């Protein structure tokens, strides 16, 4: 991180900035669908970074993380749609969503304070399912979530008269809806990344590190393990809540289906595959795991046609097969993740070397 802020690498920052600005136009040339995928990649960066606080920094295995995403998404959906006839502005809903998700984070965190590892994973998994099932069934006797049909016609992000859907002309450029969302997401992503980096190197970050390593020793050096763990849950959850809100606005539709267990597992896979606890790695993991399945979706059919002249295996199954295989291979050959922190790769590297002796 220091190198980035180094004045000598201003060039580097400028290059990244230019690339980030040009990206949606380049990708847009291949179709608006790819810009949407790009936006999802950034949303997953939010989610992965949020989960990274809980799993990577504090070492608490959370398999129900998507529940906070759901809370954020439904908060937006209920407060900005014809469902209740409410149309709150962005600056009100996003904080409300974040605070609610944070509240749910503490709600999940407090009964699980004494649990670790597998036990914690099971409880959090259950929590994720409970939230999803609630969303599914809260349509009677009072219709709150509209059940499995979900909520439609959700307001897009709007600042005053400027809406993030539809095409508009800015500085002589024609921007489609997804492109506008892209810039909003990039701005938020930069904010989230800065907060994460600052957190990691703060006193709280060090306390999380200590808890991850040894809880008794952490208590012995004077860390209030209860509060610090709750803080990890709360902070991770609020990032999930914000991502959920943007998701609802971007899609215009939410239903419980979007928040299944597999989503939690995907986000966890992004964190682990990228490099647990290492912010650049987690970002890489999120981007790769969003793009890879989509790219395979487009590649699988033409490749089969070229090789065999007909479609032998259902593209959807083959896509997931290749995806799964890729995950297995990465974990086999890069157990610390694709881009681990230097300490972690050193540690796992040592083990491999010892095993080889």
């Amino acid at each position, binding site marked *: 991180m220091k190198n980035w802020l180094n004045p000598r690498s201003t060039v580097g920052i400028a290059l990244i900035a230019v690339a980030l600005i040009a990206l949606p136009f380049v990708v847009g040339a291949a179709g608006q669908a790819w810009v949407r995928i790009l936006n999802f990649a950034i949303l997953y960066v939010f989610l992965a970074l949020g989960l990274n606080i809980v799993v990577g920094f504090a070492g608490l295995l959370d398999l129900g993380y998507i529940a906070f995403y759901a809370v954020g998404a439904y908060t937006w959906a209920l407060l900005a749609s014809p469902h209740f006839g409410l149309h709150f502005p962005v600056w009100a809903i996003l904080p409300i969503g974040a605070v609610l998700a944070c509240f749910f984070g503490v709600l999940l965190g407090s009964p699980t304070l004494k649990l670790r590892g597998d036990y914690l994973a099971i409880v959090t998994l259950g929590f994720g399912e409970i939230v999803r099932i609630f969303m599914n069934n809260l349509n009677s006797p009072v219709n709150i979530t509209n059940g499995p049909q979900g909520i439609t016609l959700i307001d897009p992000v709007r600042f005053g008269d400027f809406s993030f859907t539809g095409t508009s002309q800015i500085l002589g450029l024609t921007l489609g809806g997804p492109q506008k969302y892209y810039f909003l997401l990039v701005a938020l992503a930069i904010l989230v990344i800065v907060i994460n980096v600052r957190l990691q190197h703060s006193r709280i970050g*060090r306390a999380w590190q200590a808890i991850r*390593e*040894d809880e*008794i020793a952490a208590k*012995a050096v*004077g860390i209030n393990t209860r509060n610090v763990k709750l803080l990890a849950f709360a902070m991770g959850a609020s990032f999930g809540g914000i991502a959920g809100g943007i998701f609802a606005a971007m899609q215009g539709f939410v239903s419980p289906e979007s928040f299944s267990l597999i989503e939690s597992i995907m986000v966890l896979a992004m964190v682990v595959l990228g490099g647990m606890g290492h912010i650049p790695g987690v970002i890489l993991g999120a981007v790769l795991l969003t793009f890879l399945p989509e790219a395979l979706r487009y590649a699988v059919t033409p490749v089969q046609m070229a090789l065999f002249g007909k479609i032998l295996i259902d593209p959807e199954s083959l896509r997931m097969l290749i995806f799964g295989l890729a995950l297995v291979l990465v974990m086999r050959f890069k157990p610390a993740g694709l881009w681990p922190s230097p300490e*972690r790769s050193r540690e796992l590297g040592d083990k491999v070397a010892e095993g080889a002796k």
Partner: protein
Amino acid sequence: MLEVTGLHVAYGGIQAVRSITFHVNEGETVALIGANGAGKTTTLKAISRMVGATGDVHFCGEKILGISPHEIIRKGIALVPEGRGVFPRLSVLENLRMGAFIRDDKAEIEADIERMYAYFPRLKERADQLAGTLSGGEQQMLAIGRALMSRPKMLLLDEPSMGLAPIMVQKIFEVVRNVAAAGMTILLIEQNAKLALESSQRAYVMESGQITLNGESADLLHDPKVKAAYLGE
């Protein structure tokens, strides 16, 4: 300095510590010896608030049995946990820094790290190595160094000799005696009765959760009962 009165700990129905009373004076090294399962570690955990207990524990005249575990170190009691308890994936230096978690006087912390390096030259050589890759003895040194980094008034040592090679045990006890000689008050919990008695001024002998004997360490070393039960003579 530390006064324990009628301390009682039960795990479910099992009485691990039965109403024990002892004290540690300022500047003194007091040993608590006894066999496996006698309740020594539980006693220490009760003082450091890691397990719930009834009775009375006063430190420097202040009642400490009601406070939370992370507050203990702020009162000036530093625990060196059983089985060393270093942070394995942090470097030696980061472990020492973590020991000063409750302090925010940066310059003083850096000075104290240098003092620890002077105490334990081995740690200086390995400053950037991950603590988990150190040998058992080095980890024990690090755990003691980390505890000292909080500038405690009193050190609680839980089985510093556990799992170490005999030569390392000698070294660790040399360290303990040096720390004591520098004026630190120490409560030492140890199975190795001979070493513990040789390194302390007074000692208590624990058996099935009760204190059965106490006195000057030098006298206990020659006590026939202690000799038979703990010194293997």
